[in-house]
C-alpha cells in the first residue's frame, strides 16, 4: 500500500504549476488548508475531492426560483464602493438566456446602471469602478446549473465559469451591490440561484474557485460548504434554514429580503 502525501493549498497549486500533478494520485489536505482532512485526486486538469467527516454534515436541499417577470431581492445593507480584495460566487440555472441581472447597484435608477449581469448567451458584463466590462464567454446553456464567480484585487478582475477563467483579465475597480436579480425595474433573472457567497476582503485564488465549482461533483451534490474557504463574509443559501421573505446571511449579518414572492424549491446544483 502506498502512502498518501499531505499537502497544503500552495503545495497543491505548485503541483499543477510545475507539471508534477499526475492523474489518479491522491493527496490529503493538511490542517489549515482549504477542505482540511479531505482527499483530493488530480484528474486531467481538475482536482476532485472527497469530503472529510466534518464537511459531510453539509447538505443543500433548496434553491431560489425566480420567474423573470418581476421578482428580486434586496440587501439589508448595500455596498456602494467595495474596494481592494473581494470575490463573489454562486450557482445559476437559466430557464432562458437573455439579459438577466445577478446584481445591480443600490443606486440603479435607470436601465443602464448595471452591476453583474448576463448580456446574452455569450457575453457577461460586470461593472468595476466606472467601467462596464464585457467578458466573452463560452455559450451559456439553459436547463443546467452553472457556477459563476468573479474575483477582484483592486487591479485585476477575473470571471470564472464552472471553475475556469473566461473572457480575459479586466481592470478591477470598486464594486457596488444593492439589489439582486434585477437592474432598476428591468432584466429580471429567470431560473434558479443558489449558494451565493461574498468575500469582502479576500480575493479567491483560481484553485479556490475551481474547488468551489468542482469539489462537490464527486459526491453528486455540486454545492460545497463555503465556510471552508478563508475570508468568507456573507453566505446566502436560499432556502436552507430560511423563512421567506428573508434569506439569512449564514456568516455575516446582511440578510436579503425577497420581493414579489420568489419561492424556495428543491431544484439544487
Amino acid at each position, binding site marked *: 500500500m502506498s502512502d498518501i502525501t499531505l499537502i497544503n493549498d500552495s503545495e497543491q497549486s505548485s503541483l499543477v504549476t510545475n507539471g508534477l500533478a499526475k492523474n489518479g494520485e491522491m493527496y490529503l489536505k493538511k490542517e489549515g488548508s482549504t477542505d482540511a482532512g479531505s482527499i483530493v485526486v488530480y484528474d486531467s486538469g481538475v482536482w476532485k475531492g472527497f469530503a472529510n467527516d466534518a464537511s459531510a454534515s453539509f447538505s443543500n436541499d433548496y434553491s431560489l426560483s425566480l420567474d423573470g*417577470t*418581476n421578482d428580486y431581492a434586496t440587501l439589508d445593507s448595500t455596498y456602494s464602493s467595495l474596494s481592494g480584495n473581494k470575490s463573489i460566487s454562486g450557482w445559476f440555472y437559466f430557464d432562458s438566456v437573455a439579459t438577466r441581472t445577478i446584481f445591480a447597484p443600490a443606486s440603479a435608477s435607470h*436601465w443602464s446602471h448595471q452591476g453583474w449581469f448576463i*448580456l446574452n448567451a455569450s457575453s457577461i458584463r460586470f461593472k468595476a469602478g466606472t467601467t462596464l466590462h464585457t467578458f466573452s464567454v463560452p455559450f451559456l446553456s439553459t436547463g443546467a446549473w452553472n457556477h459563476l464567480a468573479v474575483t477582484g484585487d483592486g487591479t485585476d478582475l477575473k470571471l470564472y465559469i464552472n471553475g475556469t477563467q473566461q473572457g480575459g483579465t479586466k481592470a478591477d475597480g470598486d464594486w457596488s451591490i444593492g439589489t439582486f436579480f434585477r437592474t432598476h*425595474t428591468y*432584466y429580471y433573472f429567470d431560473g434558479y440561484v443558489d449558494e451565493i457567497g461574498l468575500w469582502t476582503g479576500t480575493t479567491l485564488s483560481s484553485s479556490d474557485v475551481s474547488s468551489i465549482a468542482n469539489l462537490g461533483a464527486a459526491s453528486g451534490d455540486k454545492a460545497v460548504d463555503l465556510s471552508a474557504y478563508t475570508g468568507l463574509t456573507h453566505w446566502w443559501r436560499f432556502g436552507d434554514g430560511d423563512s421567506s421573505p428573508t434569506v439569512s446571511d449564514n456568516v455575516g449579518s446582511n440578510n436579503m429580503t425577497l420581493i*414579489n*414572492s420568489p419561492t424556495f424549491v428543491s431544484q439544487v446544483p
Partner: protein
Amino acid sequence: MNYVILPLSELPTVDFSEVAETSESTLRYSLDNSKFILKYEGEQPSFLSGTTEYTKAEILAILSGDEWTPSDPS
C-alpha cells in the same frame, strides 16, 4: 403561476393580499408607466374577474418587447 396586465387606472383596485406582488412600489410597470403586471397562483382573484390570463412563457414574451424592456444595454 398566472399573469395579467392591467392599465394604471386599475391600480387602486388591487388587493395585494390576493396576489404575489408585495406592494404598489414593487410592481413592474411598462416603460411608459401606462400599465403593470400582477401574478397569482390558482384561481383568478375576484377583483381581476374577466382579465386575460397569461402563462409564464406568454408573459415573458410580452415583457421582452420594447413596451416593457429597454433594448440592448450598453
